[in-house]
């Protein structure tokens, strides 16, 4: 494969990106297409808990919710994956046995990534050995901002190798990259270095996922696909709390990359509170009424 010169910057016009996003947001999604979108979004969720206080009990509850999002509606899709810290992978794996829900684990000294590479690789290997199907790594933002693009590339490639068969999601932490041009460059580095998915954020830095950033990453994925025929997945994470936002993201994916990306193999939402808002909207579409949040489990 031919690698681009990462010192070259691909120009991105921020005003143009924002305009495109607001035009996409003006799509009106109603009736059947809304119900379909809500269910699709639900099936794309990486149901996540990433707290210092996470315990096996908390993770078990999370997994139960993942398997059965809302008992009142039995035929709902399950979420795509649960996303936990490496120490909790074993617990989640056991709890999700027999389902096709993946276990994703953050690794590489998440969320800062400020540990020696050897320890980050160790972290990754541990998560994989515990049974993680997917690894969410963070890039070295300090090195990136310092212009050490080759280092960032090499580290991602090393983590990819450590992943073995597990899918690699590369978190760019776009809130720390500051410009859309940096987002584009980090996306290109990650894809060329072997990412299966590129992901916006850890959820620990504000701003987390935004729609303009997501559009720029999807356009990077599109260019990569034009050049290499290889489909890379996309995961916006953090800050997506409402069904309305989720549907807006789906519109952006649909009109940027088309049908092939509109499934959990190529698009995920990293979120925790989004699940219940989607469920609430699905119930609303079925019954015509909003129910109190008390009727939805908070796991």
């Amino acid at each position: 494969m031919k690698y681009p010169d990462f010192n070259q910057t691909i120009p991105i016009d921020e005003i143009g990106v924002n305009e495109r996003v607001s035009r996409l947001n003006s799509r009106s999604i109603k009736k059947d297409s809304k119900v379909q979108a809500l269910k699709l979004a639900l099936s794309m969720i990486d149901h996540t808990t990433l707290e210092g206080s996470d315990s096996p009990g908390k993770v078990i509850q999370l997994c139960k919710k993942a398997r059965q999002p809302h008992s009142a509606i039995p035929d709902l899709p399950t979420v795509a994956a649960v996303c936990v810290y490496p120490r909790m992978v074993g617990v989640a794996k056991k709890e999700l046995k027999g389902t096709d829900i993946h276990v994703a684990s953050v690794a590489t000294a998440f969320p800062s990534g400020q540990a020696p590479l050897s320890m980050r690789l160790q972290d990754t290997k541990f998560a994989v050995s515990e049974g993680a199907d997917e690894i969410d790594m963070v890039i070295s933002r300090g090195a990136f901002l310092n212009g050490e693009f080759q280092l960032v590339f090499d580290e991602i490639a090393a983590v990819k190798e450590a992943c073995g068969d597990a899918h690699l999601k590369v978190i760019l932490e776009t809130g720390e990259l500051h410009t859309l041009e940096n987002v584009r460059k980090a996306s290109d580095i990650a894809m060329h270095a072997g990412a299966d998915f590129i992901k916006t954020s850890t959820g620990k830095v504000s701003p987390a996922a935004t729609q303009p950033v997501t559009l720029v990453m999807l356009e990077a994925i599109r260019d990569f696909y034009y050049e290499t025929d290889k489909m890379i997945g996309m995961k916006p994470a953090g800050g997506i709390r409402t069904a309305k936002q989720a549907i807006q993201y789906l519109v952006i994916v649909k009109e940027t990359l088309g049908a092939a990306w509109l499934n959990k193999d190529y698009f995920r939402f990293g979120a925790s509170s989004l699940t219940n808002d989607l469920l609430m909207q699905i119930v609303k579409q079925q019954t015509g009424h909003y129910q109190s949040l008390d009727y939805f489990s908070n796991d």
Partner: protein
Amino acid sequence: MSNAETKETTYKPTSPNSKLDFESVWEYAPAPQDSDFAEVKDRYELFIGGKFVKPSKGRYFKSTNPATEEEITEFAEATQKDIDKAVKAARKAYEGEWSRISAKERGKYIYRIARMLQERAREFAVLESMDGGKPIRESRDVDIPLVAAYFFYYAGWADKLEYAFPGKKPQPYGVCGQIIPWNFPLLMLAWKIAPALATGNTVVLKPAETTSLTALKFAELVKDCGIPDGVVNIVTGAGQTGAEIVNHKDIDKIAFTGSTNVGKIIQKSLAGTDKKYTLELGGKGALVIFEDAPIDQAVEGIINAIYFNQGHVCCAGSRLLVQEGVADKVIQKLKDRLETLIVGDPLDKNTDIGAINSKEQFETVNKYLELGVEEGADVYQSKCDIPENGYFIRPTLFTNVSQSNRVVQEEIFGPVLTVQTFRTADEGIEKANNTPYGLANGVWTDKGSKIFKMSSKMRSGVIWANTYNKFDPTSPFGGYKESGVGREGGMHGLAAYIKN
């Protein structure tokens, strides 16, 4: 001849060769804008001297919805007697109350019009889409908000004219005859009426025969706002009615927006009279895309430049000039983007491209599509579905064309883009300027100095950089060469209604 036949006899769209598949399992359900609340009468009369009056010859003409080919209503045909009556009413108002009230009071009426337009914005948007075929997304988000903005802007100038023209006592011309086109019916009305009233003129305005509905709704609003009778007169009719206005002896100024052909006729008939005039005519804008441009945003700019309002835009960017190094990439992305444009019911909130304004224009555009093929161009159209009835045309690209092709030289006024390449900035400039028109151009580059170079050398009244089709009341608008005479908008637009 039924519409379906015309479509059959043209040609089949080429099948896209994209790697991406936009025919999704997830389709958008219809999202129709509610339109029942917008009242349309069976017939509209002429608005003269503050009253709705029957036309002297008693003739009416039908208006159809271009998306359904159904008749919506009918309008009165104004003939010479009616125009005379309207000019007399305007003259009486000008010499009477309108020149006696203070500039501040004049401004108040214009502000009132602006506010009333805002209050009824959705109604006007719906009617504009029904009568003219433009998507509700545009009439709701672009046309009507701009209409209100132009009235607000010029209302503010009414009592500050001496600051706009320091050292002068600005005087209005008197009675202005105004003739507007069918592509932005209410917006063109605003561009004409707002500065004319702000400077103290009175007006006789003729909307285009295919899109008179919102102008007559506007007349109702004018009546409600209490402005003195005769200050605003709206007369409907086709070309002959327009000619009666142009040739009327007691009109002081003509403002026309429309085709270059009609503009030339008007200019001829005004020669030797002391009538002042401004003309906003056709265009064949170039979009110059450099290798260093932000490509994805440039593609979006192209979409806004040529597929906005079905390409019925005098300043549309209908010629793409793309630097050779990125030409393939831009064309590939453009083709993919075309696949996501939704063509159909103008009243559906998701529609990107509505109906071609009239049967006549539909036939004109189709003729150009055939001509392009005859001239040896490669034609590309998106494979989107289009409704069976109504006048719809898929967004179209012509590649493999050159300056000598008629589709490159002539204004098509439809959703049709020609694509050429260039190697150097000088070649880009030369191609951009190689046209009898000079209304608007666009340039896309990441480099500021290149923008300045291009904009100082491209001969057009408007140049957009890294964007296209952006309008603002403060900005003057108008053309070089055969694109027109004079400027509208901003302070320049005031000057067009003030005696020198």
